[in-house]
């Protein structure tokens, strides 16, 4: 049995709610490139804990409201 895990996030929604913050603005606030924010939003890259906390702090939310961990079991 293989276990598939994925980290999803609400960054796009939270950016929209935060006065339509751009990816570049968020990237500047957390100290990464815009491409990295794009990759995180699209689920192409799982951020480090440090970056995840930094993103959550920008939106003033706890980590689990920004990121969630999906646990799928495939037979």
């Amino acid at each position, binding site marked *: 049995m293989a276990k598939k895990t994925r980290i999803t996030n609400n960054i796009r929604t939270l950016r929209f709610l935060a006065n339509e913050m751009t990816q570049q603005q968020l990237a500047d606030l957390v100290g990464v*490139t815009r491409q990295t924010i794009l990759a995180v939003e699209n689920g192409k*890259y799982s951020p480090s804990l440090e970056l995840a906390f930094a993103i959550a702090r920008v939106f003033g939310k706890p980590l689990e409201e920004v990121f969630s961990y999906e646990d799928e079991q495939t037979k």
Partner: protein
Amino acid sequence: MHNRTKVAILSAVSNLIWFVLTYIWNRSKVIDLEGEALAQAWGIYFLILITGFLVLDVLSATLVMTREKRSGGQGFEETTDERDRHVEGYAMKAFGIVSFLCFLVSVLLLALGLGLHAFFCALAFMVWLSGLVMWITYIIGYERGL
């Protein structure tokens, strides 16, 4: 498409062209050589090959970043972050593994008595292939995720 993907594609293509051209040029030079003269000719070839790769890689990066800067991007001023280091780690690992495996194959050819020509040909192929695998890892890392 990520800037580093463009650099990787351009580098991979230019390195392939450089490898094929220098290989054909060198083949006609070393075909009749033996012993010390053969080793020396291959040594010169490797210097030319690797220097060419490095120059082409620098040119590829310069071309992509200059174009990016002209179109309003950050170009070379773009910072390196944790994702870049993550992808780079995988790329370097892939480069190391392929280099090591290809070196083993080259030595195996030598041990099997296939001669110096086969050994040096395999080494040249190794230099190109390990670079190619590294660029492919960059492309996969930035476009699909690792």
